[in-house]
Structure formats: structure tokens, C-alpha cells
């Protein structure tokens, strides 16, 4: 029984770290792939909307939580941030942080 629990825990930890390290679209957490509708992945795109690729995950998370609470004023991001839990936001932030050009 204990052994089963240990194995389960180990698998769980491995899955989590694999997710955090993964940078491909196959491993994108729920919601992440929608962001590039507005936040370009390519540098060449002419827009004032910031890119998310390679940014510090803590910064993305902090901004999203501030949009969600209304602390940080926005035009549209408050409405979007309210659709995600803190854990979902952290997963999306970690995935964008792990992506490279």
C-alpha cells in the first residue's frame, strides 16, 4: 500500500516537472494556445500587445492575478483573467516562460 502511494507520488511529481519543462504546443496547459490570438509568438508582428514567449513566469502570473482582481487596470485582460484559476494561470505562465524563439 505504502509502496503504491510512493510510486503514485513519484509518477505525479515526474508528470508535473515534465509539464513545467515542456515547451512544445503538445504540452500547452489549458487555455495557453488561445493567447497567441493576440500575443504574437513571432517578433516580426507589428503590434503594441506584448509577447509572452520567454518572459519570467512570475511576472506573467503577477500581471494576470492583478488583472483578475482589478488591481491592474486593463481594457480586455480583466475579462479574460477572470476565466482562469491561480493554478491555471501559473501553468500557462510556466509554459510561456519555458518557450524559446
Amino acid at each position, binding site marked *: 500500500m505504502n509502496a503504491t502511494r510512493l510510486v503514485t507520488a513519484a509518477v505525479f511529481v515526474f508528470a508535473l516537472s515534465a509539464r513545467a519543462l515542456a515547451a512544445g504546443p503538445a504540452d500547452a496547459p489549458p487555455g495557453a494556445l488561445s493567447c497567441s490570438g493576440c*500575443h504574437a509568438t513571432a517578433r516580426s508582428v507589428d*503590434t503594441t500587445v506584448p509577447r509572452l514567449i520567454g518572459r519570467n513566469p512570475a511576472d506573467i502570473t503577477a500581471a494576470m492575478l492583478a488583472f483578475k482582481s482589478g488591481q491592474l487596470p486593463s481594457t480586455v485582460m480583466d475579462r*479574460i483573467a477572470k476565466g482562469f484559476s491561480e493554478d491555471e494561470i501559473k501553468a500557462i505562465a510556466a509554459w510561456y516562460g519555458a518557450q524559446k524563439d
Partner: protein
Amino acid sequence: MTVKRTSRREFLKTAAAGASAAMLPLPAIAQGAGGRVVVVGGGFGGATCARFIKRIDPRIAVTVVEQNPTFIACPFSNLVIVGLRELSAQQFGYDKFAADQVTVAPSPATAVDAQGRSVTLGNGTRLPYDRLVLSPGIDIRWDGLPGYTEAAAERMPHAWKAGEQTLLLRRQLEAMEDGGTVVITAPANPFRCPPGPYERGSLIAYYLKTKKPKSKLIILDAKDAFSKQRLFQNAWKALYPNLEWVSLSTGGKVTSVDVGAMTLVTDFGRHKADVANVIPPQKAGRIAEIAGVADRTGWCPIDPVSFESKLVPNIHVVGDASIAGAMPKSAFSANAQAKVCAAAVAKLVTGGTPQEPKLINTCYSLVAPDYGISVAGVYRPADGQLKDVEGSGGVSAIDAPSSTRALEATFANGWFNTITGEVFG
């Protein structure tokens, strides 16, 4: 804890059953490849889906079937109609797809053999698939509005598929005398781009105000409510006194058109127009019907996790053609759905299970060139549909200052550049 010993024979039996239940990567494995996916339609949904499948799993062979060598984007085409943008800024090609190893088949899809899993093209080619993705956009229901035929659309353009129709409406507006009447008819739900008729009305009103101020614009609507309604109506009150919106309950539903008399007919009366823009009833693009994935509504019911058809296995539908619950028929939605569908298809062709997605939509509309408003939503699968995540989404603040409207107009521009760059660049 007891462990049941499984005999080797039992294990093999179970494993074999599991493999067949997972719907078979077997043929693909037998070929030593990663499976074959055919995508029909090279718009925001199809082009996105094809490239993402390849990015997710380069072993999968991906072909996009698209007969037009150039894609003409609908978002921002209302600016083309009023002369604030050229059609060339709406055009995108498929030249970058080869570098991604995505094959483009420049021919229409004419038949689908769902049983034998193949698509036949107009040039006779037969493309076998493990998974088929349909992103055919919309077709006009030529039987949906008495008098409104393909020939009628040459006099009363719909301009609801960007291209020649867009330019025709533009020429008609340019040719109209000052003091003329423009009539737009808006259809009942559902249809492509829910705020589109009202953005178009706004921008045509802007054009008339600046170029032909004695003219007026009437929107005849088959609905009593529409997307971003309060935002549009507040802006119209402030900016466009010559714009009149006639709702369903005040006689706005057009029941037939008389092209010869340039007249739109409602149950309440007849409206003579100098320029008539008929936005007619619509349905999923024709190949959806051919493949058997469209239901009696004319649209395609899908599973909200994988976008697989609820009617025909191994065929997925994304974009305007799909019944995507709370998600509107928009380019942003098509792009977001296509990425989720790509991830699901890549999993399914290799025997995996798609993960539960979340999706976002954001739609900008321009009330004037420097006056933008938006609607946004976040969606998740629930009860077999895509539903709004409670507490999220909504429209721009009703009382925002003009600086916010200007900022949203800038974001609208940025959005267009981003989505077209991401999909075609």
C-alpha cells in the same frame, strides 16, 4: 492488497482490445509514419490547424485542401468597403507552408468517403486520411431569403465573404449620390461574425457622415438583440444621427427582396434603397453537408474536447461551420479552436487521449477608425458543449473615456496583424 496475476494470453487479449478501442494508429504504424491528416479549408481555422498539427508532431503527414491560391480575410474588410483600407491588405498566401512540411492541395474537395476515410478532390486526386479536419467556413443559404439569388447578389451584395463582393459594395457606395439611402439587412442567429453587421453599419455611417452627409443608413434586423448592443447604440447616438436601427419587433425582419425595384420587403412595409447590402442566412460550407457532419440546422455538432463530429467519427470540424456552444463564429474562435483541435488530433492519431481544453475569444469592432470596442469570453467543455466560464468575459466598459476607445482601436489593429502573422506568416 492482492494482486491478480494476469496470464500472458489474457494480457495480450486486453492489450489488443485496448488498441482497437483507441481507434487505431495501427495502419499508420504499419507504414512507419505518424499518420495522415487532411485539412479542408485554408482560412483561420484550417490553416492554423494544419500548421499546429505539424508543429506538435512532425511525423504526421498533413495536407491542406484549398482551391484559392490567396486567402482574403473578412475581419477588417468593413474598412475596405468604406475606402479606409485596400483589399490587398486582406490577402494572404500559403507560401510559408512548404517550409513547415505542410502540403497544400490547390483543388476543391468534392467528396468524402467517411467509411473508407478518404477525400476526393476536384482534380480527381484521392487523399486517404486517419483524421479529417473540416474548416469550410460558411455558405450562403440561397434558398433562405425569397428573391435573394446569386444573380441578385450582383445588385445587392452580401459582402459576407471578402473579395469581389467587398469591392462591389465599395463601388456602389462611392457611386451613390449624396442624399441617398443605404440599407443593410442583418440575419437571425446564428451567423458568421455576430457584431459584423453593426460594425459595418457604423463604418458606413462614418463614411456617409464624412463624404455624403445628406445620406442616411437603415439597418433592418431579424433580431431584437445583438452583440455589443449597448456599446454600438450609445456610439450611434453620439456619432451617427443618420443611422436608424429597425429591430425585429419594430418590423425589421426582411421577408423577401425585389432586386429590380431595389426594394427590401418586410411584414410592415417596403424599403427602397440606393445601395442595399443584404447579409443573408448562412450555413456551414458545402463540404460539411457532403461529409454528413452538418445537422438539420445546417451547422456541425462537435465534441467540445476534440472538435470531433458528433455525427461522423474521425472527422473534426472547427471554425464558423461548427456548433461551438457559447463561442461566437469569429476568426479568433476559429484560430483558438483549431489549436485545440490540432492537439487533440495529434494525440488521437498516435493512440493518446486529448486533454480537457480551455479556449478564449476576443472580438474587436470599430465604430469609427479611432473608436474600438470589444467582447471577450473564456470557455470550457461542460455537458457536451462549450460553455462560458462563469464570472469571465463580457464587453468593454459602457462608460469608458475616448482614450480607452482609441486604445481598443489600436489593439484591434494589433490583433489583425498578430492573427494573420501567426496563421500565414
